[in-house]
């Protein structure tokens, strides 16, 4: 089903957009907001990639776990290194933990399309909240 790959491409584009936006407003963002941004971005990247990939390849549990953990680590590191070394550390940890969790969650659930849409709604609302709080700071 190639629809899931279109969905993943849209997610990657949204991640690049959020990274460019945060990179331009880097001076405005304080320590506390930076920590939250790094954690949310690492966690949601690992969650999305884990659930979507395990529903696409149900018989490759180990490989999907490694891939989603690496994606979470990369997203947490990139968004954390905008601000601080310790911020990057929290982002990396949260991304790794979520990346190990999410293929388990994705392979347990029955109605995977509903959960995929729910996770995407959570991701877009997180992006909206982050943009609002960057504007206010």
């Amino acid at each position, binding site marked *: 089903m190639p629809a899931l790959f279109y969905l993943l491409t849209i997610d990657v584009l949204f991640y690049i957009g959020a990274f460019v936006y945060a990179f331009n407003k880097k001076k405005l963002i304080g320590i506390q907001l930076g920590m939250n941004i790094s954690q949310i971005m690492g966690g949601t990247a690992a969650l999305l990639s884990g659930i979507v990939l395990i529903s696409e390849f149900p018989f490759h549990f180990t490989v999907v776990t490694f891939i989603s953990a690496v994606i979470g680590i990369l997203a947490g590191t990139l968004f954390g290194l905008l601000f601080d070394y310790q911020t990057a*550390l929290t982002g990396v*940890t949260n991304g790794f933990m979520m990346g*190990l969790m999410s293929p388990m969650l994705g392979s347990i659930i029955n109605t995977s399309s509903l959960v995929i849409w729910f996770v995407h709604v959570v991701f877009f609302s997180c992006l909206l909240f982050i943009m609002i709080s960057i504007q206010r700071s």
Partner: protein
Amino acid sequence: MKPLLLIILLSSWNGVGGYRLYRVFKKKQVLFDDHFTLAACMAVTMLTSFLAGLYLILLFPDFYIIPLLSGLWIGWRFGAVLRSPALLSGLYNGAAGALTGTMLGAVLQNPALCRLPAEAAGMADLYSIPVAAACFYMCILASLRYSLRM
């Protein structure tokens, strides 16, 4: 019998590393600011209690309460060393990490829980997850010691 030996080796390796980081934190207790205490406590407590839960559920499969209690204890110890804003975050992250580790350990023991076919996902294939997690944990400990020096 072979996975048991692997788990014992990995748990002793990570336990020694975690205890050495705990000693370093206890020695340099006064020098930290608030931001560092929060970040370090979140990172180290979550990963340590995750690995402790994973190893304990693989070693003692019948006692589901031991990993949760050990995660709470690890969070309390690290939070008490790193002072006030870290204690609450340490307890919360310790409990969350221990529950995650217990889930992963239960899936490793019985792959049918996740509807994985037991033959396709062989033992050596599944048990590479704890090895990678142990190596990643040691990398995070090294970078925490490096961030103390910065």
